[in-house]
């Protein structure tokens, strides 16, 4: 089964590195996977996105135009990527920074108060982990356990307290994502 995933938000929200952790998780689950970041004149605060494609078979194109899943971290990305989600696809919205509901009713939308949850846990920097926890819940493409398992593998130099924080953030995202 081919799945095309877009992760989009501000530069500095951990879009690229979070998507890398997802790609590593999928790889460790035995799936084929490609990870392709937007690149070039990128900067903290600018828009930033990343394509992850996964399948049981070798992946031909790493590019994503029409997505199965879109993870939207900020408002400008919603305007840009919501129209290109496949009918019946899934959108995951960071409710903390996006004060509007989905504009489409032919997709399933999961909401998660990601930045606020991350902040309460100790650092808004783990917003991306909350979002990826929500991704596991919304899509079932990866389990919460395999995401946590991939954490240390993706970031081998991560300190114990950061590991615990990220683990909590992933779990909170998984537990607190909801549909309307």
């Amino acid at each position, binding site marked *: 089964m081919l799945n095309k995933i877009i992760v989009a938000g501000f530069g500095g929200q951990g879009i690229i590195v979070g998507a890398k952790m997802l790609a590593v998780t999928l790889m460790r689950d035995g799936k084929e*996977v490609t990870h392709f970041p937007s690149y070039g004149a990128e900067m903290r605060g600018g828009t930033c996105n990343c394509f992850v494609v996964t399948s049981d078979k070798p992946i*031909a194109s790493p590019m994503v135009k029409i997505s199965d899943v879109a993870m939207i971290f900020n408002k400008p990305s919603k305007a840009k990527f919501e129209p290109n989600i496949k009918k019946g696809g899934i959108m995951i919205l960071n409710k903390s920074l996006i004060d509007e509901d989905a504009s489409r009713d032919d997709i399933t939308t999961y909401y998660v108060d990601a930045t606020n949850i991350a902040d309460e846990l100790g650092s808004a920097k783990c917003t991306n982990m909350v979002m990826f926890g929500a991704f596991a819940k919304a899509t079932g493409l990866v389990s919460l356990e395999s995401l946590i398992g991939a954490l240390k593998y993706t970031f081998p130099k991560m300190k114990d307290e950061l590991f615990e924080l990220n683990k909590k953030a992933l779990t909170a995202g998984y537990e607190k994502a909801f549909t309307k």
Partner: protein
Amino acid sequence: MADNEKVLIKGNEAIAEAAVRAGCRGYFGYPITPQNEVPEYMSRRLPEVGGVFVQAESELASINMVYGATAAGVRAMTSSSSPGISLMQEGISYIAGAETPAVIMNMMRGGPGLGNIAPSQADYLQATKGGGHGDYNLIVFAPSTVQEIVDIVYNAFDVAFKYRNPVMILADGIMGQISEAVSMPPMRDPADIPDWALGNGKNRAVIKSLRLSPDDALAAHNKHLQEKLAKIRKEVVQSEEYKCDDADYVVVAYGTPARITKTVVDALREEGLKVGLFRPITIWPFPYDALKALSDRMSKNSSSKIFVAEMAQNQLEQDVRMAVEGKVAIDSFNRLGGVNFDEEDLFDFIKKSVK
């Protein structure tokens, strides 16, 4: 990272790690997007294995440092992107003339001029038909997955040393930025320094590209180079055919467009069209014979067609025409100026064209 364990790695970093594992101990380069992860990785990695990393003052300096290192028989490389590779052409011609085994990576971006930083394939003719002056050819490999990048880079130094001919790896910017799961080959000791290298053989070695005397020295040297290139044509050429056996329509593509074409081939076959992909893995030497055999078979069906899909204007197409010799109709799908290559567009283009 351990051997044989799959790792998720970015194309540019895979180039660097595979080169180190192949025994590369010298990297000389100057930064340019979209290949900056190569020098970044090398600057950290080469000191760990006793290698030398130099960020040179320019591309001219980089390629001449590679000339020097390879003249001493060291496995050394540089990498750059289109405008930087143009600056290196003089040095590349000298290296070809002096027969040193340099490995050069070109991660192509949009041109001409400074162009942009988006993926492109518009340096095909520069890479395969010259670029620098004089009768020479680079051996040019064109990978289309990160695993293939690893395998090709790992082999590139052996090929360069075997023939004492510079090798270029030509890829579009997407190949540098994409991350995929790969198996890394084992770490190898740098091979022994060959006898021809400066300061190593029993006799005094002379590595040069200027040949003034006797009068026929340069002619004799050119004859030798051409004999060597003829041997390379036979021994190094490589291509892949995907679903070509019964194909009425064949797309010729390399690099990222080739892997995207595979999706298009499968999608068109689901609609009942017999489509295949012919993918050159070496673009110099170009797999003329394999493509000629395929097009000879296709020419028995008068409605058959060959498509050339590239992120350039009819560059790869020139080699395809030489192989096909007018026996099958050719249609071109060109994407110019550093753009992403779209599977939906190619799908529609072929469907419309075969109606």
